[in-house]
């Protein structure tokens, strides 16, 4: 009981206010990315409403904002173009099912393999993608559009110096709309971009044939959307955890995202996830509880359904200005300022993540690239930790090689190269009791060394192989036995 009160009603005034502020930042993203995805603005706006409303109840991170996002929209472009809207709804439902499954299987725990650099790269890529999505609204348009956009940005960033009581994006939207109407300017407006909601959404199952062919069409898209949605949600949740110094239930968040997407697909919305920029706006405005997310969703629906004719009058330039703001706020400027100071491998991982996303419009591929690359760099670095020293004993009849450090696929070659096979000697003793053999590659490297010495008619004795190979946890399964800690640390 106390946690329900704490999650919902401990911050009522600020949650309500910040919810309203956030709703205003949700509308431009929902609109802009419906257009990118090739669907009516209605689809994005319904999605924003239902994602925010459902996640307010099912999510694991109070205060985080979820809605229709650019990251997801970019993945559905081809599906919509080739197969139409109903398949998008079906894909959205399947995305939700996959997210529930992945959440249940512990996707949240995989996040520890996503390094800081990959997360920064993800945020930067997202910011760039959001910015690039605005470019179609800024090309082949009358010069008045540029003036309006610049004016909008000026209002957004300068108005807070006058008062912080009113959301400056709202002021920008209202002023620019009033100007366009009053001056009769001929610039593209929201109404030109397609149908806006004229009623509350209704619950309908997607109208697609339920067969294997449909699954083949939607599954790849749904899988990518499920992964990207969970990635952005987990990253945003961590960000909010830091801001508020409170923990979140990541597992519940994963499954909550799934439920929200299923509902969204069933009321005619496109898939969505958590949003970094809008969540930052929420925290900045004092939003902390579930009420802020719910308010954002409900206010958004009220705005677009009941003020629909007015929303249609909003010039696209005003929304572009708001989205440029979101893009600037999402980008991690420090990561570029410190590009040279950070380790080269970290910077390379970050840049590779950004580059792959911008090239493919697929944030999942970017993260995969980043994670693989950080894995390579790590393996390379750890592979350096290997020393082989040698000394003769028994009046030059025996040479003792002492191996310390990590032997695995990345260092196996250096391990072999450390032995002198040309030496004319009776016996070689290899002491590996202070080395770790991590995988089959390490063991076969040792076999190779033994074989090579035998060919030279040198007798080989290996000491401490049991201790060394104890680290091959998957073979000997010491990780779940008593004393595993000692085995791994003692030698």
């Amino acid at each position, binding site marked *: 009981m106390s946690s329900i009160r*704490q*999650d919902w009603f*401990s*911050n009522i005034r*600020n*949650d309500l*206010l*910040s919810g309203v*502020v*956030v709703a*205003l*930042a949700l509308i431009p993203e929902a609109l802009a990315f419906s257009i990118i995805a090739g669907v009516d603005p209605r689809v994005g706006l319904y999605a924003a409403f239902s994602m925010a409303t459902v996640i307010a109840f099912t999510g694991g991170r*109070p205060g985080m904002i979820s809605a229709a996002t650019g990251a997801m929209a970019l993945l559905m472009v081809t599906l919509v173009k080739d197969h139409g809207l109903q398949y998008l709804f079906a894909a959205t439902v399947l995305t939700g099912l996959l997210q529930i499954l992945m959440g249940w299987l512990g996707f949240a725990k995989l996040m520890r393999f996503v390094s800081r650099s990959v997360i920064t790269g993800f945020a930067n890529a997202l910011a760039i993608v959001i910015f690039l999505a605005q470019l179609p609204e800024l090309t082949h348009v009358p010069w008045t559009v540029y003036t309006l956009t610049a004016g909008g940005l000026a209002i*957004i*960033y300068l*108005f*807070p110096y006058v008062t*912080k*009581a*009113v*959301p*400056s*994006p*709202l002021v920008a939207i209202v002023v620019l709309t009033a100007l366009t109407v009053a001056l009769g300017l001929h610039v593209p407006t929201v109404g030109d971009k397609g149908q806006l909601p004229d009623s509350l959404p209704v619950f309908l199952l997607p109208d697609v044939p339920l067969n294997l062919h449909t699954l083949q069409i939607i599954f790849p898209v749904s899988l990518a959307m499920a992964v990207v949605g969970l990635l952005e949600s987990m990253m945003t949740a961590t*960000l909010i955890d*830091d*801001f*508020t*110094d*409170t923990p979140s239930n990541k597992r519940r968040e994963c499954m909550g995202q799934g439920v929200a997407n299923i509902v969204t697909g069933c009321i005619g919305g496109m898939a969505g996830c958590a949003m970094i*920029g809008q969540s*930052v*706006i929420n*925290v*900045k*405005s*004092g*939003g*902390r*509880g579930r009420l802020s997310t719910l308010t954002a969703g409900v206010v958004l629906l009220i705005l677009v359904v009941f003020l629909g004719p007015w929303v249609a009058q909003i010039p696209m330039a005003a929304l572009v200005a708001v989205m440029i*703001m*979101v893009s*600037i*706020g*999402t*980008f*991690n*400027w*420090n990561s570029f300022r410190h590009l040279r100071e950070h380790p080269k491998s970290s910077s390379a991982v970050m840049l590779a993540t950004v580059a792959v996303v911008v090239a493919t419009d697929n944030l999942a591929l970017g993260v995969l690239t980043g994670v693989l690359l950080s894995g390579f760099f790590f393996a390379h670095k750890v592979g350096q930790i290997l020393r082989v020293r040698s000394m003769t004993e028994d009046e030059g009849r025996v040479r003792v090689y002492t191996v310390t450090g990590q032997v695995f696929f990345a260092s196996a070659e250096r391990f072999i190269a450390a032995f002198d096979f040309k030496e004319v000697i009776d016996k070689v003793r290899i002491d590996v009791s202070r080395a770790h053999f991590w995988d089959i590659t390490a063991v076969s490297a040792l076999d190779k060394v033994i074989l090579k010495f035998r060919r030279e008619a040198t007798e080989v004795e290996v000491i401490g192989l049991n201790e060394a190979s104890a680290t091959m946890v998957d073979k000997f399964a010491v990780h779940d036995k008593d004393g595993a800690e000692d085995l791994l640390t003692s030698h």
Partner: protein
Amino acid sequence: MKPENKVLACVDQSRFADFVADYAVWAASRMDAPLEFLHVIDRHPEVGTSQDHSGAIGIDTQEHLLEQIAEEERARIRAEREQGRAFLNRLRERALAAGAEAVDMRQRHGELVATLVEQEQDVRLIVLGRRGASAETSGRDIGRHVEQTVRALHKPILAVTDVFKPPSACCWPLTARA
């Protein structure tokens, strides 16, 4: 380590604190036990205090926001700590003046009941006010902390109602249940 067997006086910054202090001094001297004042400060990370509803985010907003929130929290906690310390110190002086010998004080972050459960082991008697700071605003006869504490702990609890008057008689409740 040997349990301290102290008398723990739980106080909040309300008029009941003085009564609790007086009764705790009386109990401690009768039991010949050390006395400790406990002041628990609630943290409310779920409450946002921002007055900035501009909704504008720009370059480095995330870093600035994190710094700003952390700084505000630091300032608030420091002020609370200082105020709490002065308050406890006053009670300590009062207890010493009333004849108590070993008087200590402690401030903790967290919830009262959870804190008491942690500390229970070293305690022989807990003294707390029947009502506390919310007495002015809520109409309840017994504060919510009293009920939660009684349910959660396994040590004797003395709930204090009003101005100190040495107890002269004692009523022993018995139930038929074993």
